[in-house]
Structures are given as structure tokens and as C-alpha cells.
């Protein structure tokens, strides 16, 4: 077989070789080395500012174009669709009855056919708009950020806009995505390799020190793999050993964001596959709390393991997301009381993402993990703020649920999120019947209560 060498081929090979070398050197110098030492060149912030200006221009252009062509613009429904009066069942039904009859209300009849108006109206109001359902889909944006996935007015508006969008597409998928995927593989690979190495050392101060450095370094590389621009506030309140760190949950990325600024012991279920490999190697370097699938249901076991961990002051603070599921970062939902029952100091953390650059919410019913990560890596950036709140402990006479609600309110206030009492589990499950039964009880009191009055008089 003859190999045919073409001088052009040779040139091509040389050019490819050079560009690869340049590429990797740049990668190393600008991204990986700063990650190792925890410094930053400020490139990402500059990038962010430039993007914002472009988005503003794009939005104005769309609005102008829509006016010219007389199209209707879709307005996002992050605000409410309808106005709801905060009246109670009793007040409203009494009002309906009052308007329908001339009789004095005290001798009113127990049941009126007009009562159903109240239920019908409240029901339809909830169908049109409720506080919970909209928390499980991505937040809608006021201005367009040049991503098709968040555009609701995708008509052809102008050449310049389309060109800009096309350019953005090219940059994101052609340049940023491969870069980020490389970094991600590097970060994860290093994590697995180095933690396994450290696992060979004997337990002691050296091991802890090295484990800390390795974890931080790998998480910082992962942070750059997502082009995450994070601002940490109030770092003096950072969680200390023997405490529990609780935060609101928006996506699996929350872990990376918090862990790149401090060392935590993770809590979670053991997975198979790549995740399992990562989990098993991480636990070699420092103690994390991983549960078997069967153990997760046993609340006492879980509580015992967690409290054993916090009592050992040499172990790292535990990181827990008490909502139990991903919420879309506009609100904070019910905190499960398990972690508040242990009696350890709680360090609340509020995480708020800026959705303009890329929405970090993981809608697990719509996208799998790989799909989600691809979306993340092909967005412009992940921008977020992290607030470390001062530590809280359970007070006298406060039970776990009240304590949990107090922490939740503090997190919601700091992060500018809506504080909801509803359970995040409503993402997948139906509402418990107890809520319906409560309403039935209230209504029954109206009917039967008047009967008792009549029998007395």
C-alpha cells in the first residue's frame, strides 16, 4: 500500500498541531492554573457585561419590530394573571347569601343554592393561576437573551437580530461547548484520580489538608466548566465543622457552587454508573454520608447517621437541601424537618441565580441529566449570588417544623424569593386529601352551626 503524501496535507497537519498546542496552553494558563490557586483574571465578568448590553439591544429591537409589523408580543406570566381577593370561605358565602335574600342573616337558612358560586369561582381561579405549579417550570424572562429556548416571540424580526442569534449559536456550540466539556472531563477526572490517591494516605492532618485542597481545586475547574460567575456574600458566616449547611435547591449545580468555596460533607443516595464512581472515590479522601437506596426510607437511621456525623467535630459540615427536590428559584418551598431535628447548629445559605444568562433550573420531568448538562454548557453563563446567613439554632419551645420554617423565611428574605408553605413534592404527587377535608369541615360548620343556633332559640 502506498501512502500518498501531499505537501498540502503536511501543512494541514502542522497547522492543526500548532492550533492544538496554542489551545491547550491558553486553556491551562487562563483556566486551569487560576482554578488551582483560586484566583481569577476577571475575564468572565467582562464577558457578562458585554452580554448584558447585547441583550438589551436585542430586546429593544424585538419590541420595535413587533410594533412595526403589528404583531402582538407575548408577555411572560411571571406576574399574576388574575386578581384574587383574600376573603375566607365564611365571609364570601355569607356575602353571596346576603345579596340574594332580604332575610336577617342570623335566622338564615343553612344551605343556599348560591353557595356553589364560591366553590366554582375559587376552583376556576386556581385552574387559571396558582402559586405552586408555576414553580416547577423555568422562570420566564422579561427580555430575550438570544437563546431559542427562551424566546416566545420567535418571528423573523430583522436581519441583524438573526445574524446576532446565529453568531451566538456558533459561539456557544462551536467554541464554548467543546471548551466546557473538556474542562468538565478534566475536573471530574482529576477529582476521581486524586481523591483515590489521597485515600491511600493514613488518616491525619496531612490527609485532611490535601483532601481539602484537591476538592476545592476540582470544584473550581468544574465551576469554570460551566462558566459560572458566582458572587459570595458575607463569607464570615461560612459553615463550620459540626454544623449543618442548608440551602434552597434549584439544580444539582448548587453542590458545585457551594463546594468550590468551602469543604462540605455531602449527603445522598448511592447511585450507579459514573455518579457512583465519583461518590466512592470522594469518600476515600474524607467522610461523606452516602446511603443505600433501602436505607433512605428509614428516617431514624438517617437521623442517627447525620447526628453521629455532626457530633464528631473533626468532620466537615454537612450539606443538605431540605426542599428535597429542584424548585425554579423564584420561591422556597417547604423544608423537610429531618435535618432540623438533630440539634446541630444550622448555617443557612441562600442561592439566587440570574436567569438572563442561562436558566439553571433542572426540570427533571422534562429533561434527563445529560440533556440538562448540555443545556447548561451551551448557555451563555451561569450567574448567581450566594449569601451566607448567620448561624441559627433551635430555640426553647420551638419544634423542628417551626425551626425549619424560621430558617426558610430567613433564606427566602435574603435571596428575594417567595416563601411558600407548600411541599415541593407536589411536583410529582397529588395534593393530600387533608386539604380538601379542611375546606369541607369549614363549610359544614356553616351549615350545621346555624342549625344548632336555631335549636337553641
Amino acid at each position, binding site marked *: 500500500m502506498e501512502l500518498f503524501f501531499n505537501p498540502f496535507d503536511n501543512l494541514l497537519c502542522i497547522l492543526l498541531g500548532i492550533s492544538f498546542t496554542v489551545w491547550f496552553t491558553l486553556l491551562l494558563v487562563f483556566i486551569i492554573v487560576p482554578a488551582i490557586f483560586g484566583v481569577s483574571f476577571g475575564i468572565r465578568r467582562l464577558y457578562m457585561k458585554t452580554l448584558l448590553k447585547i441583550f438589551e439591544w436585542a430586546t429593544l429591537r424585538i419590541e420595535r419590530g413587533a410594533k412595526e409589523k403589528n404583531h*402582538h408580543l*407575548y*408577555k*411572560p*406570566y411571571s*406576574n*399574576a*394573571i*388574575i*386578581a384574587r381577593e383574600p376573603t375566607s370561605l365564611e365571609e364570601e358565602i355569607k*356575602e*353571596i347569601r346576603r*345579596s*340574594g*335574600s*332580604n332575610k336577617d342573616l342570623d335566622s338564615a*337558612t*343553612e*344551605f343556599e*343554592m*348560591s*353557595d*356553589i*358560586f*364560591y*366553590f*366554582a*369561582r375559587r376552583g*376556576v*381561579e386556581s*385552574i*387559571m*393561576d396558582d402559586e405552586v*405549579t408555576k414553580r416547577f*417550570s*423555568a422562570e*420566564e*424572562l422579561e427580555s430575550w437573551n438570544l437563546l431559542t*429556548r*427562551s*424566546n*416566545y*416571540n*420567535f418571528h423573523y424580526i430583522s436581519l441583524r437580530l438573526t445574524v446576532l442569534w446565529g453568531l451566538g449559536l456558533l459561539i456557544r456550540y462551536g467554541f464554548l461547548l467543546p471548551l466546557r466539556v473538556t474542562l468538565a472531563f478534566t475536573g471530574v477526572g482529576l477529582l476521581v484520580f486524586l481523591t483515590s490517591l489521597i485515600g491511600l494516605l493514613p488518616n491525619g492532618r496531612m490527609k485532611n489538608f490535601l483532601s481539602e485542597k484537591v476538592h476545592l481545586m476540582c470544584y473550581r475547574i468544574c465551576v469554570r466548566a460551566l462558566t459560572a460567575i458566582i458572587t459570595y456574600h458575607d463569607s464570615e458566616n461560612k459553615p463550620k465543622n459540626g454544623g449543618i449547611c442548608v440551602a434552597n435547591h434549584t439544580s444539582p449545580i448548587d453542590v458545585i457552587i457551594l463546594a468550590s468555596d468551602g469543604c462540605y460533607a455531602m449527603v445522598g443516595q448511592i447511585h450507579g454508573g459514573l455518579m457512583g464512581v465519583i461518590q466512592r472515590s470522594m469518600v476515600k479522601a474524607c467522610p461523606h454520608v452516602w446511603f443505600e437506596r433501602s436505607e433512605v426510607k428509614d428516617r431514624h437511621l438517617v437521623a442517627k447517621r447525620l447526628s453521629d456525623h455532626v457530633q464528631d467535630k473533626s468532620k466537615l459540615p454537612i450539606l443538605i437541601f431540605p426542599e428535597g427536590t429542584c424548585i425554579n428559584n423564584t420561591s422556597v418551598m417547604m423544608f423537610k424537618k429531618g435535618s432540623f431535628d438533630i440539634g446541630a447548629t444550622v448555617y443557612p445559605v441562600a442561592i439566587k441565580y440570574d436567569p438572563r444568562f442561562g*436558566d439553571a433550573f433542572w*426540570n427533571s*420531568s*422534562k*429533561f434527563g441529566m445529560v440533556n440538562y448538562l448540555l*443545556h447548561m454548557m451551551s448557555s451563555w453563563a451561569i450567574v448567581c449570588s450566594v449569601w451566607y446567613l448567620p448561624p441559627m439554632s433551635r430555640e426553647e419551645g420551638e419544634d423542628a417544623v417551626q425551626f425549619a420554617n424560621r430558617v426558610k423565611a430567613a433564606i427566602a428574605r435574603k435571596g428575594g424569593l417567595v416563601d411558600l408553605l407548600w411541599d415541593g413534592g407536589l411536583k410529582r404527587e397529588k395534593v393530600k386529601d387533608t386539604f*380538601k*377535608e379542611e375546606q*369541607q*369541615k369549614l*363549610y*359544614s*360548620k356553616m*351549615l*350545621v352551626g346555624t*342549625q344548632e343556633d336555631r335549636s337553641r332559640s
Partner: protein
Amino acid sequence: MGSRASTLLREEEIEEIKKETGFSHSQITRLYSRFTSLDKGENGTLREDQVNFRGFMRTLAHFRPVEDNEKNKNPPTTEPLNSRTNKLLFAFRLYDLDRDDKISRDELLQVLRMMVGVNISDEQLGSIADRTIQEADQNGDNCISFQEFMKVLEKVDVEQKMSIRFLH
């Protein structure tokens, strides 16, 4: 991710729904976005009874405030869905479970049972139902027809109580 709602709903459809229900363009697109977020199976219908978007809007249209009709530039030729009579008819159909245009004692009992749960005994509920039918029934057939229903509720401010105020 953000729903591309308005691209899935054609302009002609929006116009048709506008004529039929009286909702404005922006209200229809918002409610369509809501419909798609409730439609978990993504097959264009809501689970119970297979309600499609047109049916959804027709039902919701009953709850539009009556004043909004004056703002409408093209009033529909037939009676609008949110007229007083149609609102009353909607409420009547909530009671009339078998759609035979009469509310029988059994139907009234069933609906009452749904509203009170387990908190009231059968006898008490029965006497409430009996009294209600007695007061409303005029032609002695022991059922409530739509005319009798309207008569009982003639003084009730149906327009306000069966209306939902939109913010846009």
C-alpha cells in the same frame, strides 16, 4: 424550559377563540401557556374528560366579568358566554349531574355530600336537600328546573360572584 406557547397557537385560532369567548389576545396567549403547563402528558388535552384548549377556554369564558363586554369592539351575535343567564346555567349544570335539565333530590344530595365530606350525617343532609327543593319547586315535580333555579337566585349578584378579574 420556557414554553414557546404563542408559536404553537396559530393566529387564526386565537381570533376564533377571541370571537367565541371575548378574551383579549394577551389573555388567550397567557392562558394557553397555563394550559400547556397543566397538560403534563403533552397531548393537547387535560387528563380528566379529555378537555382540549377550546373547551378549556369556553369554560373559563363563563367567568369573565360582564363589564368587559362593553370594552369588546366586536360583540358576538349570539349571547356571550359570560352573560348572567349563561353564568347561572353553568352553576345549574354543576348540580345537574346527569344533564337532564332537572336537579333531582339525589343529585342535590350527591353535590352536598361532595361539599361537606363526612362531617354531616345522612339524615341531616337529607333534610337540607328536602327543604331546598321544597322552597324552590313550583310545579310540584320534586325537582328543580332551570327556570325555578333562576327564580330562587334572582336577587343574587351573579355577575360579581361568578366573575374573575383579569389583570391585563
